């Protein structure tokens, strides 16, 4: 059985906000930089999250973020190695960046003043 994430975790419940996993994937695309295509993004998420994340979850989220215009894809031909199939390189759009900033700001506001209660972030 593939891992299955609850909807609330996966998807921004309110339009215009980001779900946690969406944030994760967007940040992974940014980290991968120019070479961000499916497999690379998957590796970034797995590396950062430190947990088992399925390819399906990442790819579906990528598609959804594209639909929300937070990502844009660029198709690039790459030799014969992939059975003649192109790579799709992904780039975070301006809107995507704004969404990430807004999420970060919200989280930071909420975190402020709670360090005493929650302690410093581990690691």
């Amino acid at each position, binding site marked *: 059985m593939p891992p299955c994430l609850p909807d609330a975790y996966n998807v921004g419940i309110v339009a215009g906000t980001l779900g946690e996993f969406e944030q994760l994937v967007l940040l992974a695309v940014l980290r991968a930089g120019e070479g961000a295509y499916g497999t690379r993004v998957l590796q970034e998420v797995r590396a950062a999250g430190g947990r088992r994340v399925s390819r399906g979850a990442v790819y579906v989220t990528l598609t959804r973020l594209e639909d929300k215009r937070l990502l844009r894809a660029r*198709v690039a031909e790459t030799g014969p190695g992939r*059975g003649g199939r192109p790579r*799709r390189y992904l780039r975070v759009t301006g809107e995507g960046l704004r969404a990430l900033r807004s999420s970060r700001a919200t989280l930071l506001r909420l975190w402020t003043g709670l360090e005493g209660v929650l302690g410093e972030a581990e690691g």
Partner: protein
Amino acid sequence: MKAPTRPPALAERLLARCLPDGPTAEAALGDLQEEFDARAAGGARWGASLWYAREAWSLAWAYGRERRRQTAARREARAREGRRGDPIMRILFEDLRFAARALARRPIFAAVVVATLALGIGGNVALFSVVDGVLLRPLPYADPERLVILWENDRLRGTDKEGASAPDFLDFVDMNRSFGSLAARARLDRTLGTLAEPVRVSSARVSANYFSLLGVRPLVGRTFLPEEERLAGDRVVVLTEGLWREHFGADPRAIGERVLLDGEPCTLVGVVPAEVLMPGLGEELFEPLAFGPVDQFRGRHNLRVFARLKPEATVASAQADMTSVMKRLEEMYPDENLGRGAWVRSLQDEVLGDSRPALLLLFGAVGLLLLMACASVANLVLTRGVGRERELAIRTSLGASPLRLFRQLLTESLLLAGFGGAAGALLAVWLVGLVRVLGPDLPRLKDASVDGRALGFALAASFLSALVFGVLPALRGARRRPQAGLQEGGRNSGTATSLRARRSLAAFELAATVVLVVGAGLLVRSFWKLQRVDPGYDPRGLLLAKVTLAGPGFAFPKEWPVNDWPAESAFTEGLASRLEANPAVRSVAFAHQGPTDPGWTTRVTVEGRPEPAPGEQDEASFRPVSASYFRTLGIPLERGRDFGHFDGPGRPLVAIVNAAFVARHLPGEDPVGHRISVFGLPREIVGVVRSERFQGLEAGPAPAMYLPLAQNPQPALTVVLRATADPLDIAPALREAVRGLDPTLALFELGTAEQALARSLEERRFTLLLLGAFAAVALALAAVGIYGVVSFAVSERTREMGVRIALGAEPRHVFRMVVRQGLGLSLAAIVAGTVLALALGRVMERLLFGVEARDPVTFAAVAVLLLATAFIASAVPALRATRVDPTTALRAE
């Protein structure tokens, strides 16, 4: 096995199917293959394949889940939009689906409702089919609404449906200004020979234009030509379809063949379709109508006259026209036509009019039954509504508007009615079949069927029922307060009003039941009285059969008056001696008309009385009978003597009259010895007999004079046999005896007198049976209604009962209290129903015999019956109330 160098094909196919089309899928496949190649190149080829399959499965699963999520989101968005005014059909569909689910959760409730409605709707559709087939559908002629029948009437004797005489008919043709064409017909019985066995057929002599007047074309051959309206020359005949099929195998080559009619050869010239048959007349063949010397008499009213209105004429204008024609004829021929008028009646009314009151009564009754079924169902739906308070309250608090709930509840009712209507239509098909088999000999009844119109009626009835039984509960359901319903165990806020609504419905059912049961009761009383009417003779053990003496051996004497016909005497004496040798035959008699045949009347004068003023002459039934007639029938002689064998030809002319004749013509006198004049011949009255009801049980005894058959020979005879045992057992012997005397004679209308009497009551029996069935169903529905209301009230008051019992109330007090409640409601309903039944009584008057429409016995009996029903229906829940355990009742709160 060689290690794979390519990704597993199955996994690739799975991905192609599950991933969204286009570049996304291409890229994902590329990504997978890229890594697969890398892993395979590392040597772990099997591991690479396994990895590929796992990744492919992960992608397929995730995308499939995503797709389902999107579909659900879209549907939700659509539903949200729907609440703001989506196309009406979609809302309806949604409501229907919801309603179907709601009903499926309560299958027994749904089944009971559907069955009740099916009964109500099915009964209505079946009766609609019959009424439509018999009364509403036009006759199968061209422009049937322009066809009329012309009756003569006699205001001096108070008759309204007499035929016209041939001279009158010819004058109508000349003098009228209203009719495009007129045709006359006269009925007679014929023996059709040339077949394996002679058969008796009823024939009509008709004007040559009869068929074109009706607008009926022959199936094969032709109809009559104007020049064939003559007495001499070749005779021609037209068959109806039924006879042609039965005896000629529907062979078109039969045209031109010769057939024997009463022994005389005729040429078959054509066949007309069965539709030409005028319902209730049932002729099987047609001959041209020709007028002979006997038709010169204006007093011989043997023709039925049919006419087609001119385009500008109406029945009313034609009536005015014919009234003036008759007035002129009255002035021109005062001897024969004084007091005679005309009655122009539309053919449609004529053919169907007589069955109308009974059918409309039944239709009204079954309509009432449907209303009752609706009331029962409304009651059931209300009951269920009480059980659903919580559901409705939750939906209200979740934001469902009252309108939305109303619509939803009404949709449920519509769905129930739809199922009820469908089941009802099926039931109706079966019921109509049953009515066609069991029903009386109504015109066109055999054609009744559940057709498109009937199904349309079923649809309308279902829809209307849904409105009738659904609106009240839906209104109540929609108005519910959410808090009340949500309070656990709390008293339902709607209970009081709901109980009131339910009481009204049950009361309505009971009142309607009063009407139906009173109707059925009045019919039962009429039927009972009719069956006890003394017909004036003893019908048990009597066998009747008709035979007409015609053909080569039976040439009717040509001289007038006919006082002797040896051929007939030979036949009657021969038949009597053959039959009387049979030990099963007690006695044999012959008559021109048997005891169940009204026969015909003729003018009679009593000698020594002042000559009556013109138009005041009286008529009496003319009944030639053999000497053994009164003895065979068991008609007692009140005065004088019976006929004997000596009252034959050449002997003094004698007559016996019945008591009704004496009461009319010679009241307070001894009629024996008086002389009467019939057909201008004086006769001496030698005896008086008790009156037999030859006009049927419903009519009173009519004046009649009996003449010796031997002095008044008649070709048309009825053989009357009294058997020692079952009269039908001697039927074969009778046939054998007739065949032995003359094999060309056909015996017809053979049956017992009791059968003939029962047949005369057949339509009445049928009406009674149906109305009785409706009343029984109504009674059952009403009893269930009362039971439901009272037991509901008891269950609502369980706590109160518990308190009462705990405080020392005795069970019989509780019982009385509950029953009183049920009876109080019933009494009010019965009073209301009785008032209604009294008001509606007039509708039934024509169907009653020997009882008043306001017959107090019937009304009292019905009231008692219904009160008893109401008592039983209330007693069951009342008994339950007395057994309430106070501790349980109080703890339940």
